[in-house]
């Protein structure tokens, strides 16, 4: 079907202006693409590849340090770079609207949601009074806000994350734009909510013949939503294709790298049958809620409310759940970073939850942790040497400095860095390299169990695979067990032997990963799995035609 071209980008290039301390830098090499009416065009790539800069350049909203050096953007045939700022204002919102990643910061916390939707209507469509309110309510209804009459006067903090994003979409739709730029619209949301928002967007674009420029790093979202896809790397578009062709046969090496990591279907790790290394029996972590002058405890927040699980040596147990389900708290409680309110913890047959601080110290050698964000998990003022050495010194691994030195060098080589990196500082490394340093730091004290708290969710897709590969390799070599805390179900088949699904502080289902992924019993697990943007089903469906 030949559709009308709505937006045409020709040889757009952007550079970072020179400052006294550095020369100018090209951020976007000349790129060209076009978006047709009613089409979803996905722009994918790692962080820093220039996706968001491209979208801001389309709206002429670039920060002052960035500068458009060439090319043109035609919206319905009109060159928007030729407009003055006043004309541009009528383009923004009215013809191109934007949805941001973080709904929390896109909404004004001191204005009711109804007013915020109304504001943009009043500005662009000059509606008044009852008519205005009727229009706002119909918009809220359209984006699926239940009981819009009552919620008209609600404030953003009274809504959930998903509902906030719906309001943001309602504001974007208020002026009936022709193009919606959605910059990572679901990244900040849970999987089940992500599913709903994506289907809402899909619905709207069918109903309104709306074109959507979807910026994302999630290949699952691309497969689910997009008609065409462009892959960006280092400011250039390396591949443009129809989605079904793209997933069937990616042409560019970078695209292949992005896709190589996606689950291959039924290759599951088989569970290990050995005695448990770590065993949790009915663990509870309750945080007291205090009130009044004397800080009387009047209630508890039950972050973890009776969790039992076990991990065998050399096994990976994936603990999955949405944010707020208490999965991170479980990991922290094992390490005594949170106090356990009730329950028993056994490590290698020894009960460890009753040990005092000093008696627990030797166990810190056995159990270690890797954090989600490799940027905040390292003291920016420490060199790599100090980072690695800290735990070894504290726990007495390595008798003297030279032995520690040798060990640190070996560790860096092991995680794929160079021994020469010891004297560098964290800020000199990329996210993936930092996560490798974090892994080396945990390995430095020769642990038997590593708690991996979302080890890959802050990393780019192409790096995720490498880090997971490294973790698996180390598991094979040293027989380390992992407690893998994650919300990303797509990595489970590849790395986990067993899976435990958590909801509201409790484990709702537990079993081998094959069993959970292919034949989930619990209703919640089923909904969780259903909402993963499933690339497999989509691609195979299209192949059937």
């Amino acid at each position, binding site marked *: 079907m030949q559709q009308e071209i709505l937006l045409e980008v020709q040889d757009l290039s952007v550079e970072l202006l020179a400052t*006294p*301390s550095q020369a100018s830098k090209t951020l976007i090499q000349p790129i060209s693409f076009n978006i047709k009416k009613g089409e979803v065009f996905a722009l994918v790539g790692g962080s820093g590849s220039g996706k968001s800069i491209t979208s801001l350049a389309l709206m002429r909203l670039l920060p002052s340090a960035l500068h458009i050096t060439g090319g043109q953007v035609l919206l319905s045939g009109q060159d928007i770079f030729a407009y003055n700022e006043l004309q541009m204002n009528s383009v923004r919102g009215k013809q191109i609207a934007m949805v941001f990643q973080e709904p929390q910061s896109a909404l004004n916390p001191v204005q009711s949601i109804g007013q915020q939707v109304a504001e943009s209507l009043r500005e662009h469509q000059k509606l008044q009074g009852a008519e205005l309110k009727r229009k706002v309510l119909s918009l809220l209804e359209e984006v699926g806000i239940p009981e819009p009459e009552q919620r008209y006067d609600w404030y953003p903090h009274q809504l959930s994350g998903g509902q906030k994003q719906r309001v943001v979409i309602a504001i974007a739709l208020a002026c009936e734009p022709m193009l919606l730029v959605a910059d990572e619209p679901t990244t900040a949301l849970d999987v089940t909510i992500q599913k709903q928002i994506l289907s809402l967007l899909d619905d709207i674009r069918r109903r309104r013949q709306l074109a959507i420029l979807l910026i994302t790093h999630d290949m699952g979202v691309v497969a689910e939503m997009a008609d065409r896809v462009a892959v960006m790397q280092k400011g250039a578009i390396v591949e443009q294709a129809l989605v079904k062709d793209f997933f069937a046969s990616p042409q560019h090496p970078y695209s292949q790298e992005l896709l190589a990591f996606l689950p291959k279907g039924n290759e599951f790790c088989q569970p290990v049958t050995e005695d448990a290394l770590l065993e949790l029996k009915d663990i509870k972590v309750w945080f007291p809620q205090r009130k009044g002058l004397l800080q009387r405890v009047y209630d508890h927040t039950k972050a973890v409310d009776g969790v039992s699980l076990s991990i065998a040596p050399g096994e990976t147990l994936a603990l999955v759940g949405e944010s707020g389900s208490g999965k991170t708290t479980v990991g*922290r409680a094992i*390490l005594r*970073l949170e106090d356990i309110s009730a329950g028993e913890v056994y490590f290698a047959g020894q009960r460890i939850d009753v040990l005092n601080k000093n008696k*627990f*110290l030797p166990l*810190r050698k056995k*159990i*270690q*942790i890797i*954090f*989600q*964000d490799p940027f*905040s*998990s*390292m*003291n*920016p*003022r*420490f060199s790599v040497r100090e980072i690695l050495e*800290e*735990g070894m010194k*504290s*726990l007495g691994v390595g008798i003297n400095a030279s032995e520690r030195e040798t060990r640190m060098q070996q560790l860096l080589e092991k995680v794929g860095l160079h021994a020469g990196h010891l004297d560098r*500082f964290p*800020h000199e490394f990329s996210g993936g390299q930092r996560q490798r340093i*974090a892994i080396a*730091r945990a390995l430095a*004290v020769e642990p038997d169990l590593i708690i991996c708290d979302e080890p890959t969710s802050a990393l780019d897709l192409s790096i995720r695979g490498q880090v997971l590969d490294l973790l698996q390799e180390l598991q094979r070599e040293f027989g380390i067990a992992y407690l893998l805390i994650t919300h990303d179900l797509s990595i489970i088949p590849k790395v986990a032997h067993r899976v435990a699904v958590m909801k509201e502080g409790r484990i709702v289902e537990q079993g081998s990963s094959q069993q959970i992924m292919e034949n989930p019993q619990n209703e919640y697990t089923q909904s969780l799995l259903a909402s993963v943007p499933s690339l497999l089903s989509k691609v195979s469906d299209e192949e059937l035609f």
Partner: protein
Amino acid sequence: MSISILDVKPVFLFSDILIYILVASLGLFFYQLMRNPLSRARWRGVFQSAAGMAAFVVICFYVLVALLDSIHYREPLPILENQTEVHYSQEIRSALDLIFVGVHKRSEKTYSSPFSLQLFTKENMQDENDNLYRDYPMLKHAGQHLSSPAEQGQDVVNKSLLALLVGLLISAVFVGSHMLWRKIKKPTTELPWWSAYLTATVLVLAGSWAIGLSQYYHIAGTNIVGVDVFYQSIKAIRTGVLIGTLATLLTLPIAIVLGISAGYFRGWVDDAVQYIYTTLSSIPGILLIAASVLLIDVYIELHPESFSLGAVRADFKFLALCFILGMTSWTGLCRLLRAETLKVSQLDYVQAAHAFGVSNLRVIFKHILPNVTHIILIAMVLDFSVFVLAEAVLSYIGVGVDPSMASWGNMINEARSELSRDPVVWWPVLSAFVLMFVLVLAANVFSDRVRDAFDPRFGKG
């Protein structure tokens, strides 16, 4: 009789010792900072701006004056007959007086306006024929080298040109040798040295002009007791700089210890610290300071034997004032540090350190303290100018430094009566204002740059 420099008796006031320890420890602190590449990059950011560089040079100039003014000595008195022991003068002089070559000795009777050859007030005088008349008497010291008052205009121009020439030579030597050093060392990063050169040259020129002309005239007039006002306001630099740094440094340990322990340990420690600082900050600061200063006065009255010299007494009172100012103004920084520590101690690297069983003390020193340093630095430079101004306010209401000590606050205090006279005596307050303004402006500009470079909220991170 001439006095050789070797005959003098060095005097070490408490504040002298403190200022040298202070400058040395600041030097050490900066040396430590320079060793860390991250903080070095940030400091480079401070000095990469021309304004920051210029402000730094100005501050250095003030500190240099304060240091010179802190080398104290007593001159020996002329040896009388039958006297074996050398007696020393009750007056304490400093190295700065050497540079001014006896300006302190050239006191007039009372007010005289800048560059004037006559007193500001008329007096009864007798002429050769013993007739009484009223006129402005000639000054005892200013313009004595002139053969007639009519030459003054030409003389001032000549002397100015000479002094400026000397100043130009001195700054040329400094700037030239630094440029040579740069040629040899070839530093990797380019800093706006031209701004430093320009500021230094302006300062040296102004200094040499002022000192050169002070030998012949009272360039900023004289005050009510006939002391040269320019000399007095230069002597006040030491008071201003010292009160700024000492009071700031006294706030630091209290604020750091209490703030970080409140943020790190939380629980009852936090409650206790918060209780202390809310209580303290709800009492008006002036009230506390005034009460403490009066207590100190009573103590000095009751122990006259410990304070034999006037200068020692003034020094004690001055240190007490610094101490009190420090004690009453740590709450702001403490609050900031508590909040920042709360934030930093939740970061993953602190959690990782806990997971490694690192002791609390080590976590605080290795992880928390280095990562809240930017706040301490920013507060330090901001507080400095606040304290310099606070001294002026306190002296104005009569609870500041000892009246015998030169200070801008005391000069402003006197301005109360001077400005209500007719015709107005404007030069002491103007002189104090200009010097204080330059210092506070430089400190503020510098603190702005420091904040830009160190505060993560201002971008660069």
